[in-house]
C-alpha cells in the first residue's frame, strides 16, 4: 500500500502537532510540579494551623499513616507540645453525602476527645447556600470543644445541637455526621493512635543515631 503526497502531508502534520503538544505539556508539567506540590502543602499547612491547638512541632513533618483496612490508611497529623507529648490529632474526614458530592473536612481533635476545630478543605456545594460550611465562622466555631457526650450530633432540624443554614440543610447535616463519625473513630482507636506516635518517635530516634 502506498500513500500519495497529500496523505503523507496529513500524517506528518498530525504527527508534528502531537509531538510539539506533548513536548510542551511534558515541559510545563515538570516545571509546575514543584510549585503545585508547594501550593498544596501550603494550603494544608494553613488549614492545619487553624484546626490544631498551639503546638511546638511541625504536624506535616510528623504525619503518620494509620492503617484503616488492608488497603487504606489515614494520614494523621499529630500536634505535640514542647516536651514532645501529643496534645491533638488532625485528619481528613470525608462526608460522601453532601448536596453535590463529597465534602472533605479537616478535623482537629484533642487527645482528651474534644473537637479542637474543624475546617472544610474541599467541597462542591452551592455558592451562597451550602458554602456556609466554609464562610460561616460562627457555625464552624460551634463545633469547638464538643465531645461525643456533651452534644447531640444532629442538625437542629433533626433535633440536634448544630444549626442548619437557610435553604441548605443537607450540607451541614453531612458535615455534622462526618465529624461525629470522626469522633467515634477516635474513641475506638485512640490507644492505637498513641502507640503509632510513640513507634514513629522511636523510629526517628533510631535514624537520628545513625551517622
Amino acid at each position: 500500500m502506498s500513500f500519495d503526497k497529500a496523505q503523507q502531508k496529513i500524517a506528518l502534520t498530525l504527527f508534528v502537532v502531537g509531538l510539539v503538544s506533548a513536548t510542551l505539556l511534558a515541559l510545563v508539567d515538570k516545571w509546575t510540579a514543584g510549585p503545585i506540590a508547594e501550593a498544596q502543602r501550603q494550603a494544608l499547612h494553613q488549614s492545619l494551623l487553624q484546626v490544631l491547638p498551639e503546638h511546638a512541632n511541625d504536624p506535616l513533618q510528623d504525619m503518620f499513616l494509620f492503617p484503616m483496612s488492608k488497603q487504606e490508611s489515614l494520614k494523621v497529623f499529630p500536634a505535640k507540645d514542647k516536651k514532645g507529648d501529643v496534645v491533638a490529632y488532625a485528619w481528613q474526614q470525608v462526608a460522601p453525602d453532601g448536596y453535590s458530592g463529597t465534602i472533605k473536612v479537616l478535623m482537629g481533635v484533642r487527645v482528651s476527645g474534644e473537637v479542637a476545630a474543624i475546617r472544610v478543605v474541599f467541597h462542591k456545594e452551592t455558592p451562597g447556600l451550602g458554602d456556609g460550611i466554609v464562610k460561616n465562622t460562627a457555625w464552624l466555631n460551634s463545633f469547638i470543644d464538643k465531645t461525643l457526650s456533651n452534644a447531640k450530633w444532629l442538625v437542629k432540624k433533626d433535633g440536634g445541637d448544630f444549626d442548619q443554614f437557610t435553604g441548605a440543610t443537607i450540607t451541614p447535616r453531612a458535615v455534622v455526621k462526618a465529624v461525629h463519625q470522626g469522633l467515634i473513630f477516635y474513641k475506638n482507636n485512640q490507644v492505637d493512635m498513641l502507640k503509632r506516635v510513640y513507634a514513629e518517635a522511636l523510629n526517628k530516634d533510631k535514624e537520628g543515631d545513625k551517622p
Partner: protein
Amino acid sequence: MPSNNDSLNKQEIFQDGFWFNNAIFAQLLGMCPLLGVTTTAENGFWMGLATLAVLLCSNLIVSLVRGFIPDEVRIPAYIVIIASLVTVVELAMNAWMHDMYLILGLFIPLIVVNCAILGRAEAFASKNNVVDSVVDALGMGLGFTFALLLLGGVRELLGQGELFGFDVFGASYPDVLLFILPPGAFIALGFILAGVNLVNMKLQAKKDAVIIVEKQAGSESV
C-alpha cells in the same frame, strides 16, 4: 470573511469581538462556563481571564501555522493545540492561583470544549494574519470576560447582596437565593440580553439617522 492579506481595521475587529459579535451576547456561545461559574463576580472574572489566555494563544498559534495545516485535518490539529493550551493554563493556575483553581475546578478543563475558542480558530485565525488574530482574540476574550463579570456581578448582588465579596446592600437585604441557583443564571442572562439588544437598537437607529441625513444632504446638492 475578508481574504488573507488585506489588513483589516484593528479597531473594527476589536469592537466586533467585544460587542457586536460578542461570544455571549450576540452568538450565545460558551453557555456552559457562563451559567456554571458566574455565581460571583470574582469567579466570572477569573474564568473569563483563563478563557482569554487560551483564546489569545490559540488564535496566535493557529494563525502562525495556518499555511502548513492541510484542510482535511485542521479541526483535529486545532483541538490538540487548544487542549494543550488549556492544560497549560490549568497546571499554571493549580501552581500559582491554588485557591481560585479549587473554586473553578471542573470548568477549567471544559474551556477545551468552549465552542467560542474553536470557532475563532476556524472562522478567524485560520484565515487572517497574526496581528489581526491577536486583536480578534483580545476583543472576543475581553468581551467574554466582560459578559461573565457582568452576569456574575448581577447574580452575586441579587443573590447575596454582595459584590466581589463586599457587602453592598447591608445585612438586612434578604438574599434572593434563586439568583445563585442555575435558574437565576438563565433569568439574569435573559434580562441582560434584552438590555444589550436595546443598546444595539439605539446604536443602529443612530447609524441609520446619519445615513438618512447624508442622503438628504447628497440629494439637496444635486
